[in-house]
């Protein structure tokens, strides 16, 4: 199981994790999990950012005399320590014991909890039900919801042998959820069709 970071901020609806390596955040829309054997939280990555460690100090341009981007990092090895990559995940479900629930967990994630990228088997198990789509659609995020939903479905479809059947089934579920907003539905369909 691939460890991708550590929780640094958490609330009931989402959590922020910092990556161990710069720029190593999981892809947009991928399913991640955090927690211990007592209970696990599942989240969908909806945002990633790389910023300066200190909020007051913005990075400055350094590449004027360098031949390539890699050269900049080679000449300034401290940069890797002064910058950090973080990603945000929206909580879409949790596991208690053997049972998988597609709704919010009673407890938020714990700070310093390790965050793992889910294996294809886990993704497949989680996406047996499309109940989590409702959480994604009704969330108020800084990132457009259409993008998150379509990115998430594209990611999940890779875990299924029959990608098309999975996407058609998801599309049908979306048709019901978005029955009042055909334009948004059409936008998502356009992003998940192969």
């Amino acid at each position, binding site marked *: 199981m691939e460890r991708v970071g550590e929780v640094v901020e958490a609330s009931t609806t989402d959590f922020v994790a910092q990556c161990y390596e710069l720029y190593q955040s999981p892809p947009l829309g991928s399913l991640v999990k955090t927690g211990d054997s007592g209970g696990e939280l599942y989240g969908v990555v909806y945002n990633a950012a790389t910023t300066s460690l200190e909020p007051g100090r913005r990075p400055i341009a350094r590449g004027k005399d360098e031949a390539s981007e890699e050269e900049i990092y080679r000449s300034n090895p401290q940069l890797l320590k002064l910058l950090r990559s973080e990603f945000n995940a929206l909580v879409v479900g949790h596991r208690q014991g053997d049972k998988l629930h597609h709704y919010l967990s009673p407890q938020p994630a714990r700070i310093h909890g390790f965050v793992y990228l889910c294996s294809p088997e886990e993704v497949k198990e989680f996406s047996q039900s499309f109940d989590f789509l409702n959480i994604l659609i009704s969330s108020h995020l800084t990132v457009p919801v259409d993008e998150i939903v379509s990115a998430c479905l594209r990611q999940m479809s890779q875990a299924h042998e029959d990608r098309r059947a999975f996407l058609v089934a998801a599309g*049908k579920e979306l*048709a019901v959820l978005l029955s009042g907003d055909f334009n948004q539905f059409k936008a998502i369909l356009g992003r998940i069709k192969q």
Partner: protein
Amino acid sequence: MNDRLGIVVSGSLTRGVEVRLDSSASVEDMVVGRYVTIEGNRRRFFGMITDVSLGVTDSNITQTPPDVADPFIAEVLAGTSTYGTLHVSSYLTIGGDVDSLLEGPQPVKTIPGHFSPVNLASERDIELVFGKEDEERFWIGNPLDMETKLCLNLEEFVKRSNGVFGKSGTGKTFLTRILLIGMLQKSKAVNLIFDMHNEYGWAGTSEGGPPVKALKQLFQDRVAVFTLDEENSRRRKVSTDFVVRIGYDEIEPEDIGLLRQTLNLTELAVEAVYQLRRQFGKDWLQNTLDLKGVDELPEGVNIHESTLQNLQRGLMTIRRLPFIEPHAPTNAVDSILSYLDRGINVVLEFGRFRDITSYILVANMLSRRIYAQYQARMERAMGEDIAKPTPLVITIEEAHKFLNPELANQTIFGTIAREMRKYNVTLLVIDQRPSGIDDEVMSQIGTKITCLLDNERDIDSVLAGVSGKSELKSVLAKLAAKQQALIFGHAVPMPVVFRSREYGSAESYKDFLPGKPAEKDIEDLWS
């Protein structure tokens, strides 16, 4: 086993229920007239698809249609944002408990609950409602898009007057032939067929094909062919059993009344006939024609010169009919009755005399006498507790000429249709213009079988008084031009569209012939 179509989403008892199609069911496979079952919580409903429509969840879809050239998008949209709906009229219901199962299907008095699943009716459902082919039930065709045999209870069918309607060329004659064979085999009734176009006796015509066998060829000993036109029958190589001749003395004033329009007689001329009959007795027709003018009229008869001329001109037309003779050598009525009493069906061919004057005159005259005999026998049977006469079905074509509002009260057929089975005589009316038939007669017709009709008035007239008329109307107007028919009324528990059974091939004749089941049993025994 059942093919699920969708779920009930709304409805009312009077208007029928709306069914939303599942995405797996294609709206193009749904055709009006198909038979469906709805599984309610406690009972099953049997109904018929009467309308098909398209729906969308969001009106934006219709304004900015998505790109359905992409199969993915088309597949996602089908059954979700865009869906098909069916309008189903339910007719029968059967409860889930043992008692209701024994009772069989009952007329519907409620509707299924929300989201009850809807299935295509299976063969078993059809059998449950219409019964299997047996002693009384006759296979008349197959329900739309199904292989199941649709059977009609002919014993029940002949208890009322019935009608076969449809535009010219839609298969009325073929259907009637099938019904006649059915009655011959499965009911105790005998038929008297006034065969205007020589279609039922020996051989019938078929559009673009060789002639088809008719009743006599298939059932030699159960059918007698009578003819008005011996020469024509001989030329067509039809072996006839009896040549009908009609004497002047057999024509009654009522017969002239019926022919008023076709003979172009005035009201006064018809009135005069009664006076003349009173004066001259049985030979009135000959005597009237012999008159040279009003001067020769007997005393007490007061007829105007022009009226007499009008009447004489009309009577001349009758006298010119070749089958009319001063004195008929044989009595056609007695002969017909003697055949009917032996359980032999009688087909009366008109040969070349297909004009409406001959048809009305002969059909009406013979039927009136036969009916009078039946009435007398029936009354005697009731009084003396002896066997009732064999039920008789009289088949007439071009019925609107006899049963139009003007004549329905005068012809014997109007009386038969109204008084119905009291005297064991019923009608089988074949017509292409049902709107021409008197409403009162139409309302007394028990079972109606109708092929395609496209005239609004004809459709209204056939469906008058039927519950769910507007729904059936859409079904009726969409029937195929051939072989398909809608049957509803007394003899069937619910309306059903069917494709009439094949008639005309050697194989089909074999199917009709009796004794086949026995042979089959023996085959089964040895195989």
